[in-house]
């Protein structure tokens, strides 16, 4: 293998047969320190078509997608051929659109810089107006209403959806013929996902070649024309989406598709008398700088019984996490009472006793951020038992190891540093850490969003096992994903900070009463329509 980078191949080398294709990758191989990230990848992006790359996290999707932009990880050895028709610009919509928006500049800053270069031929006095007109058109093409006002805002004043559309508008203004969208729906609720699907479909309808990197198989099925299934840096299978869904040829594709099948719902538990956790008249506020406090959550009553699992669902920003944080003592600014086994819990985690701390445990969405990067995972997991239950170090380590193994981690993995574990492994470790406190209530805040389907399935199965094995423990699942909510006995629905509906899971899922729950169900159903793999539910 040579150490040269021949990705900047001359353009116009395409033969007549390839005329239609606006971007092409041939035999791409990317290697860092002898570790192969991507190997032998072929990809053709056709105008007006959506090409999807699917696969678990770390399968090389992003590396392949970024190769189209000419961006590679630092220190990478790259061979192969990446060709973009007429060297046209390639647009990029990253998973976190806020990361490419300059926090110190208004939305108009980059748009203006792009537009300026396009109006150079005009007389000087007409340039400004022409550039502005182009910017406004790009924003409205990206389905952003009220573009005038938007231009003078800062990125942090926009919602996540608006940020995504602004980044899209940048690509449209640039005149990109290929747009790479990296995990555009990951961590989004059903309504947002369906909006993004429409958005990307509209891009393809404009004749743009969309390269979609995603592990959201519902979205891939709804959008993609051509699908490439990746595993460990290789394309294991590719073909039209219908064929792939109907008759997957590769074992891995089958696994990916099967992992989507929904878990079986639980029958509601018989009413067992006293609730382990009881919330009454909870009103939580957020201090908002000088403006004062805004009420973000109102929960008249919510109870969690021993051995029961409760899913709290709702769109992003509806106060689900705030509710969980109130229970865990992480959000102090609230009225109302939270009772644990009939006794009131102190509002702040600082005023809770060790036993009270151990009783309510919290598992965060971002497992990586929840671990100290300098200490082995096992030590950090064991520490919970030492701190909260006064166990001695040796038996704590023993218990940590047993718990980690029972959650599916390999013994040798547990001695590694968090950076050497995958997202799914770390989330299991975070679960184990919470379990070592022997909690009465385990709160899981979006612990599967951001994971690919196979990993998510694994975590959800682990949770199901936990509920079965620890019959005295109650589980609270914070999620925007109705698939995950199916796992629970009961579901509570939050909309704009109000608890709009709660009841047994099968009742909420089959005959929702509140209009918001109905719309949430319908959107999910629409995304899932006809996407069921053969043999699944």
């Amino acid at each position, binding site marked *: 293998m040579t150490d040269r980078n021949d990705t900047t191949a001359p353009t116009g080398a395409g033969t007549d047969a390839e005329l239609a294709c606006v971007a092409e990758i041939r035999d791409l191989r990317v290697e860092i320190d002898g570790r192969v990230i991507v190997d032998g990848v072929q990809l053709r992006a056709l105008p007006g078509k959506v090409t999807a790359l699917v696969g678990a996290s770390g399968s090389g999707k992003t590396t392949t997608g970024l190769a189209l*932009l*000419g*961006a590679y990880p630092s220190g990478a050895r790259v061979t192969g051929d990446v060709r973009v028709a007429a060297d046209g*610009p390639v647009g*990029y919509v*990253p998973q976190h659109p806020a*990361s*490419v*928006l*300059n*926090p*110190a*500049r208004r939305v108009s*800053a*980059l748009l203006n*810089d*792009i537009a300026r*270069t396009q109006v150079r031929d005009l007389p000087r006095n007409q340039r400004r107006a022409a550039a502005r007109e182009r910017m406004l058109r790009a924003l409205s093409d990206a389905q952003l209403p009220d573009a005038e006002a938007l231009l003078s805002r*800062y*990125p*942090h*004043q926009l919602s996540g959806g608006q940020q995504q559309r602004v980044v899209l508008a*940048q690509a449209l203004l*640039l005149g990109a013929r290929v747009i790479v969208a990296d995990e555009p729906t990951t961590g989004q609720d059903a309504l947002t996902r369906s909006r993004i699907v429409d958005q990307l479909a509209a891009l393809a309808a404009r004749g743009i070649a969309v390269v979609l990197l995603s592990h959201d198989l519902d979205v891939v099925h709804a959008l993609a024309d051509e699908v490439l299934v990746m595993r460990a840096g290789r394309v294991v299978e590719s073909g039209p989406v219908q064929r792939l869904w109907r008759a997957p040829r590769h074992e891995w594709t089958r696994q990916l598709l099967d992992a989507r099948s929904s878990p079986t719902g639980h029958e509601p538990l018989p009413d067992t008398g006293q609730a382990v956790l009881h919330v009454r008249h909870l009103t939580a506020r957020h201090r908002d*700088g*000088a*403006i004062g406090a805004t009420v973000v959550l109102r929960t008249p009553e919510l109870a969690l019984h021993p051995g029961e699992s409760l899913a709290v669902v709702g769109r992003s920003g509806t106060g689900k996490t705030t509710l969980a944080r109130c229970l865990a003592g992480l959000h102090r600014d609230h009225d109302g009472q939270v009772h644990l086994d009939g006794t009131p819990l102190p509002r702040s985690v600082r005023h809770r006793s060790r036993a009270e701390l151990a009783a309510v445990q919290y598992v965060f969405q971002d497992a990586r951020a929840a671990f100290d990067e300098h200490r082995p995972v096992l030590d950090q997991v064991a520490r919970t038992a030492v701190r909260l239950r006064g166990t001695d170090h040796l038996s704590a380590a023993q218990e940590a190891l047993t718990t980690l193994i029972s959650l599916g981690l390999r013994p040798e993995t547990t001695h590694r540093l968090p950076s050497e574990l995958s997202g799914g492994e770390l989330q299991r470790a975070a679960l184990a850490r919470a379990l070592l406190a022997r909690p009465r209530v385990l709160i899981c805040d979006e612990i599967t969003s951001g994971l690919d389907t196979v990993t998510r399935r694994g975590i959800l199965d682990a949770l199901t096992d936990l509920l079965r094995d620890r019959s005295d423990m109650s589980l609270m699942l914070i999620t925007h994903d109705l698939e995950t909510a199916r796992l629970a006995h009961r579901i509570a629905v939050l909309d704009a900070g109000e608890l709009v509906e709660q009841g047994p899971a099968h009742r909420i899922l089959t005959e929702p009463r509140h209009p918001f729950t109905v719309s949430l169900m319908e959107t999910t159903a629409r995304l899932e329509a006809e996407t069921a793999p053969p043999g699944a539910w």
Partner: protein
Amino acid sequence: MTGLRSFVTRRMLLGVVQTVAVVLLVFALTEALPGDAAVALAGDQPDPARIAALREAMHLDRPAYERLAEWAAGLLHGDFGASVTSGRPVSQYLADGFGPTLLLAALTVALLVPAGFGLGVLAARHEGRLVDRLISSLTLAVYAVPEFALGVLLVTVFALRLDWLPPTAVGYGTDLLGHPAALLLPVLVLLSRPVCSLARLVRAGMVDALAAPYAVHARRYGVGGARVRYAHALPNALAPAVQQLARTIDWLLCGVIVVEALFVIPGLGTVLLNAVAERDVPVVQGLAVVFGVLTVVLNLGADLVAHRLAPRAGVAA
């Protein structure tokens, strides 16, 4: 915008409280010092009877709270009171001392801003390469030298050995602008450390900003290198530098005692030094008020600029 206005109002009120606290503290500390203006004036022959007479003449025999209350009442009408030793109005002292200090500060800032930001951006642009390592090590080395040491060194070399520049501003009074040669060394000494800290801050901010995804994104979409550097990356690197700049201006305006003493410049620092030596409490208090207000206003200004540069961080009072 109402949020910003109430932030400014709250900061102003807090600033008034802080200034009052500084004045009270300064008054209490000068009272606690052994001896007073009468003792200082009596000089080498401390005759108790003479001291008592002086004390009575200076109204120092009255209780401390009365003197403070009288002075504070005068301040409300804009009257800083009069020096106990000379009887001249304190405002006269302040006006005389402010000229040279302001001149030095203005000249220093005028050179500091382009030099600090320029060096910082230059180093960040060549991160890890020779230019960066040169600038980084040089700024660290110069920063490590205290003002008095650098001042003595420069005076020794350029004034005493080479005789190119006057060693001090003695004899020029407050008309320093007429003798620019006398200003060169003081400004150089004042510049030395702030340039280094500012350049290092700007460099660190720029290195981060240039590697940030938004800068990469702008470059990817065909925005030119200089434009990415100055229009997209620099605004993000400015916020901490602006705070540092405000502290530096504050430091300069409050009279840099070491430099003024070294070059015999009759600025606010010299006024303060003399007033403390003479236990001239009204002058010290007047200076404390001026310094307090300057500090509050400059920091508020810096916070507003930083808020404009990093709007996401919000305003934290």
